[in-house]
């Protein structure tokens, strides 16, 4: 057990705890905020795993953009402020069981395969901006461009969806 194990373990605990709060909190806005904590902790994990660039992207995009959009979504759907009792379904026990079972299956599978493996983090960082940038624009440039197309179409789609309903409101 090295120090890195401890660090990533603690970050993991934070991430899991925050995720749990996202899943069970009774306050909608809190859920979004707990999500920030969780994502940040995951970014920390990335850092530990020497994927620096990804960590910052994680913070920028997820924490900076996505959670903000989610908060907008909550506001636009008139989310109540304060605790709400029926945020979860009555039959959540079944959902919980299934979730635990899914987790158990995954963890079992992973541990059975890689239970004793260790990561060698010595040497240069695996994911600093140089490394990642080089790889992306050499090996992954075509998918990267396609992703940009996807983003564009998602943009158009989102506008179309919102506009269609906007017209209705106008008329």
């Amino acid at each position, binding site marked *: 057990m090295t120090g890195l194990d401890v660090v990533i373990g603690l970050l993991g605990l934070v991430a899991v705890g925050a995720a749990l709060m996202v899943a069970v909190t009774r306050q909608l806005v809190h859920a979004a905020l707990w999500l920030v904590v969780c994502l940040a902790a995951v970014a920390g994990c990335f850092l530990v795993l020497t994927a620096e660039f990804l960590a910052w992207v994680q913070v920028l995009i997820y924490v900076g953009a996505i959670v903000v959009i989610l908060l907008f979504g909550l506001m636009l759907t008139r989310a109540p402020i304060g605790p709400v009792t029926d945020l979860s379904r009555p039959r959540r026990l079944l959902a919980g069981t299934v979730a635990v079972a899914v987790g158990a299956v995954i963890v079992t599978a992973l*541990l059975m395969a890689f239970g004793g493996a260790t990561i060698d983090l010595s040497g240069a960082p695996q994911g600093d901006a140089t490394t990642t940038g080089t790889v992306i624009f050499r090996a992954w440039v075509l998918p990267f461009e396609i992703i940009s197309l996807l983003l564009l179409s998602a943009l158009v789609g989102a506008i179309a969806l919102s506009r269609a309903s906007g017209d209705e409101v106008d008329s």
Partner: protein
Amino acid sequence: MHLAVPLVIASALFAIGVYAVLARRNAVLVLMGVELMLNAVNLLLVAFDVYLRDTLHTGQALTLFVITIAAAEIGLGLAIVLAVFRGSATIDLDLLRTLADHDDGPDHDGPDLDAPDADEDHDTTIGRQAQRSGSPP
């Protein structure tokens, strides 16, 4: 450092994400659950990328793509949620049942097994046969 630690964390995140998707009634919270699951996957991808010392850094590249796609997904998802909210004034998934196989569906123009003049539910199409006969003299 042990590979097991990020693996366990990712599995737990994924399970929690599943729970959120399955159990939460608010559509935005369900989307958050999806984000959790995506993050779990991202963590795995990065962990394996580092573990395997992949020179192409497939894991990291994919993670980047996933993040991008997640951004697109959340944008579209919220647009849909908003459209639904405008249409039915709620985003409570328990109340959104338009996909249900309704008994009183509006379209019966086509040749449907239920005769349009079906006045009784239990009487099946073929079942109606039982009621007919020439009465014996």
